[in-house]
């Protein structure tokens, strides 16, 4: 005869089994949808390129070798793939600068929003989300209309007599940065605002009462408390900025490749799908490493402040 304990154990086992069975379909979908395509990319990166695109089912580590090493086309020496490294570096730099720019603009914006009265807050929030109603490409073209030689900025500058010939902004790195900062700003503002809204402003007052300077209040009270929002915002901006395609192409003029262009080249005119796959996975690894480093770092200093 089973004791009460055994019955309870059996019931628990059944419960666990049922839970697994019930969640199996969801787990299967997550597993297939999230890892299935990635697995194909991973497998392709170890195959041989077909003569006109596609892959031949033949193992080859060449794609991975050529991500960072290249055989010189003229003297056949093996060396660091300077072109790839330059392109990787350009993309990483742009993503970092975009993150910093959006943070610099987004933090005060979120602070401003959070310190309004409750009624008007919703209005500000609403205004921030408006750009999301239109397509990214259209927003980018809107920026182009503003900064191009016959655009709004240059027309005003010339009318005011500040410059005589239009200032070339379009097709420069500045143009890319303006576009990126504009496009990704809401992604930074929203998470910071979310944590700023929960901030207990009595703590800020307490800080002032204890003779803290404004800067000290910001650094020692506000910033540590909204840090989760800053981290979330930075991640939300950094990842898509690293893979940005539309904005750099339209505003930068396509003279200098970004990571995304390099990958596209391999699947298009370059006809080297394995290299394209290897490059894609390399980007994922960079993102993962950057995230781990960032989150760990942030976590550590968070503890110190806490």
């Amino acid at each position, binding site marked *: 005869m089973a004791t009460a304990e055994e019955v309870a154990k059996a019931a628990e086992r059944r419960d666990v089994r049922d839970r697994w069975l019930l969640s199996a379909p969801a787990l299967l979908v997550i597993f297939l949808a999230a890892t299935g395509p990635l697995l194909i990319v991973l497998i392709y990166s170890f195959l041989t*390129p077909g*003569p*006109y*695109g*596609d892959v031949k089912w033949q193992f080859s580590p060449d794609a991975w070798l050529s991500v960072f090493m*290249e055989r010189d*086309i*003229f003297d056949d020496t093996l060396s660091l793939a*300077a*072109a*790839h490294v*330059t*392109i990787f570096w350009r993309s990483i730099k742009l993503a970092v600068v975009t993150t910093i720019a959006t943070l610099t603009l987004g933090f005060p914006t979120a602070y401003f929003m959070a310190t309004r009265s409750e009624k008007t807050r919703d209005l500000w929030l609403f205004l921030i989300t408006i750009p999301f109603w239109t397509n990214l490409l259209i927003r980018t073209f809107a920026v182009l209309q503003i900064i*191009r*030689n*016959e655009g709004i900025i240059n027309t005003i500058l010339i009318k005011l007599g500040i410059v005589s010939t239009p200032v*070339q902004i*379009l*097709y420069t790195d500045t143009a890319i940065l303006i576009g990126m900062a504009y496009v990704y700003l809401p992604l930074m503002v929203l998470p910071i605002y979310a944590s700023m809204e929960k901030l207990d402003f009595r703590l800020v007052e307490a800080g002032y009462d204890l003779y803290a300077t404004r800067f000290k209040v910001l650094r020692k009270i506000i910033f540590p408390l909204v840090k989760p929002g800053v981290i979330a915002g930075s991640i939300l901006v950094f990842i898509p900025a690293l893979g940005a395609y539309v904005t750099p192409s339209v505003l930068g*003029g*396509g*003279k*200098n*490749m970004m990571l995304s*262009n*390099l990958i596209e*080249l*391999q*699947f*298009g*005119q*370059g*006809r*080297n799908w394995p290299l394209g796959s290897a490059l894609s996975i390399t980007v994922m690894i960079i993102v993962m490493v950057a995230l781990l480093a960032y989150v760990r770092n942030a976590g550590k200093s968070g503890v110190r402040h806490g």
Partner: protein
Amino acid sequence: MNWKTMTAAMGLALLATTGLARADGELNIYNWGNYTSPDVIKKFEAKYNVKVTITDYDSNDTALAKVRQGGTGFDIAVPSQTYVPIWIKEGLVQETDPGKMENFKNVAPEWANPDFDPGRKYSVPWALGTVGVVVNTDAYKGPADSWGIIFNTPDELKGKTNVVPEMNDVIFAAIKYVGGQQCTDDKTVLKKVRDTLVAAKPNWIAMEYNTIEKMGAGDFKATSDWNGSALRQRLANPAIHYNYPKEGYGLWSDNVVVLKEAKNVENAKLFQNFIMDPENAAGLSAFHRYANAITGSDKYMPADMKDAPEVVIPEAAKAQGEFQKMCAPEIQDIYTKIWTELQK
């Protein structure tokens, strides 16, 4: 067999034949974007009672990759001549034998038996064009019939010149400029090509496809471009001129093929025949602004194209035109490396 089954069978047979002749049903066309004349399509739909659906692609490689995966539901595609042999070799298209179709007599003799499809067993000409240099003569008055505009940009055009980032076209042009042959494996030539490109790039403002709008607005004063695009630019601004580079320029043609996986083969064949009719060919040209290979189409062409220098290649420039070929994969690999080096 009693007479009832007989009549039923005959009725069915009759239905089947009329069905073939009238070709009611659908046709799915897979073509480059902004390239298919809606008027000509409407005419085809009305004539054969067929519903036509058009899907766009943006490059030969995209089209090839997608059709190769199969299950697209497309009946017709329009690859460039460099790609037609690949489509044939990979077994993606079916032999519809356009060479024996009724309207084939209209195809100009020089287009009736091309290298990329001997005897026209698969393909029908859709459009013909060239790749040359476009210059806004308000900004630069000097001679412009040279790739030097792009690769050794004159001072007036520095920082105002665009290059259409079509890898094969640009490298073809650069090879011609340094005096080589297309698809060459001569390393000294290729090295010169790379050095020329890398040295030229600082003088370019951009590498973009969007030339019609940007040349019109004055963001660019010169660009490498296709002739049809150049024609549209001149119609917007008469100061914009198209030039045939004296070092040699690329000729291309796009061709209509029927896919092996086509479900509406008869309609697709009707379409191939339909566009070889002079009036219809002229209708296509009036929309995409490129020449066609159909004799007798000139009298239906719009007035602004009849003797447009972009469409009708001047006698003096004819000899320098050369059909672009598909290079061997090893050569293509070098092209990609040079291209990456150029855009790094």
